[in-house]
């Protein structure tokens, strides 16, 4: 079972702690720009704060364009073999998400390796905006949100042991689609 990074953009505050802990883990330096995760911020139309992470694709475009087969997918992680890499940076351009990075001082592209299954960004995000989830669970929260968005929720009040409580329930079959 492979696990993937999932991002909840609505939770991201743009503090960039993920960038910093990534640079410390992989390069041993304090440099948010030497990182395999970068937070993209747009403002004010629209207001977006979103960490851009590698999806560890099963058919990785980066692997396809690499002229020297330096990128390969093993155990759910697309990893870069720096012994083979010729630093052409075609992979950086080929990634549809822009999730591989270049830095002036780095010889090789900066590519997420999921920190051997225990990603620093996930551990240190103060908002819980980056999570490591099994592949089968991807999209679960969206499915739930989607259903809730068109389900007519009703609320009833009732008394239990003298205490007034409320209960929400869905009127199934009466959705306004």
């Amino acid at each position, binding site marked *: 079972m492979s696990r993937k990074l999932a991002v909840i953009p609505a939770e991201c*505050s743009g503090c960039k702690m993920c960038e*910093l802990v990534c640079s410390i883990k992989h390069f041993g330096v304090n*440099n948010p720009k030497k990182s395999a995760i970068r937070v993209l911020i747009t403002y*004010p139309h629209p207001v977006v704060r979103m960490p851009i992470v590698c999806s560890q694709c099963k058919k990785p475009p980066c692997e396809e364009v690499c002229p020297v087969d330096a990128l390969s997918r093993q155990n759910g992680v697309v990893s870069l073999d720096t012994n083979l890499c010729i630093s052409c940076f075609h992979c950086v351009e080929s990634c549809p998400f822009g999730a591989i990075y270049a830095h002036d001082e780095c010889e090789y592209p900066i590519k997420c390796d999921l920190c051997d299954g225990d990603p620093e960004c996930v551990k240190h995000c103060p*908002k819980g905006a980056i999570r490591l989830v099994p592949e089968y669970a991807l999209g679960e929260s969206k499915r739930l949100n989607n259903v809730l968005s068109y389900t007519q929720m009703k609320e009833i009040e009732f008394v239990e042991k003298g205490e007034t409580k409320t209960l929400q329930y869905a009127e199934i079959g009466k959705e306004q689609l």
Partner: protein
Amino acid sequence: MNIKGGYFRKGLHVNLTTGGIERCDLSEDFIERYIGGRGFGAKLVWDNLKAHDFHIDPLGPENLLVVAPGPLTGCYVPSSGKNSFIAISPATGLYGDSSIGGGFGVELRQTGHDYLAIAGAAAELSVLFIDNEHASIIRMPYLKGKTCLETEGIIKEKLGSHDLHVAAIGIAGENRVRFACVNSDWSRNAGRTGIGAIMGSKNLKAIVVRGTKDLPVHDVAGLAEETRKAVKYMTEHKYFRLWQQQGLMNVIEYANSKGILPTYNFKATTFAAHDKINGETMLEHYKIGDSACFMCPMCCSNICLVKNGKYAGTVTEGPEYESCAMLGSNLGVERFDAVLAANKLCDELGIDTISTGSIIGAVIEGYEKGVISLADLDGKGIAWNDDDAILDLMHRIAHREGIGDILADGSRRIIQQWPEMEKILLQVKGLEQSAYDSRVGTSMGLAYATSDIGAHHARAWTIAKEIEEGATWSAEQKVDLVMYHQAVRPLFDMLGVCRLPWIELGLNERHYEKFYSYVTGKTMTLEELLKLSDHVYNLTRRLNIRLGATRKADSLPYKVTKAPVLTGPNAGKTLNEDEFEKMLSLYYEKRGWDKDGAPPIEVEASF
């Protein structure tokens, strides 16, 4: 060398008149004794003042503007996104500084410079672009009249990258409004002491930085371990979640319940409509996202959207407590969407929310009392809760139209024009007072009076502690607390980190001696660091004395001692003048200053 990390040991000096750009090496003595941020700025401003025989026009080309992050800025330290702007203030004519959060300071450090010092004035509206070690002055006259937000957008487009930071001024800065601010990350402002007017006087529309360098940290692993302990403490704090959700907006309810919320230009200190402008209302109807400064788990900034009504479509980051109180209750504004619109307009025009709220509040009261006439107001009346007139007056201030031309020059000019306004305006040294009433806590009065930049809470914020614990405090205890704050709080500005984890979540200040030691490789205790901070306090005081400040400059606004609070738990209270004067004398004595508040002239030799 004692100091092994923490600095690039380079300062960047730019002269906009000659176009000269120089990188200078920083001495061990300079970085050891002045640390960074406000410390670097104060020292450089002092040297410049001395070179000009202590005569400087704050809006003349000779005024040196220093932009300085600290050695911890951008490091793996909680809330390390701070950067200071330091110069002689056009609002007070004395020492001035203001700090900014976000990511500007981090990026400036990553260019490989420990500070940036700007002298002279460009012939045409220009932008200073620092791209790692390369600096250039680019003429961009077409930015004239653009808002702060537009400027940031246009520059990013022109330079073809979003991976850089911009600190820009708006129309108010261009027009040298003496409380104009510098804006970065769209909504973060170095608001106080008129730094934006200084940039305007230099024809400098924006400073743009793009830096990619590793920050020099001596012991990365040690620092990471210490920071993880600190972040763990913060995230487990009982109020941590509240800070993430409401940020500083949670203070509105607190201030109202304790009777310190500025209301109707501080006539009252509780606001009947407080629940219409508080954190709960914001959460329920307006907030659409969190925003944090670099490396800050608290993310105290809120992004708000007005969804309907006459301000529909307004997106703004903020307000925080000061802005909400000064543009809300202080002006009697009873609707949160109007506060958001005013906050957004301040960001666009580039004016300080505190000074703007304070001055407009005083104008409304002055008009109410007949001190300012309808003719003075160009025939446009203004009243409490009149959001249309308030927003219109902001425009006139920034554009210097009609009465706006006088108001734009701040408190000192307003009092010259209408001497009776001295009884209405709340200001010290010409800087308008922050959003905490000092009639309640005498220590807060002393804090405002003795702050080197004027009536601002940045140097000492003692009011909450005095309200909670201070009923039986002696004058000496209050003086001690103010002095301790005046050492600790500026230390944060020297290190380049935010003070909120300490003041709001109680993160032990001992962590900071460790952060400093891990970053620089030089072991220092908190006490030793505070001594350096005190040294800078003496420097800014000597600087103010040289510029003509005396004990009189440490007096409180008329209202604080003469006009009793009208409502709430503190109704009828004023600050006792005799008690205050005694405290002030004791304060001077404890600091080793003379009766006029001057440190001995001999200390100048040590600057």
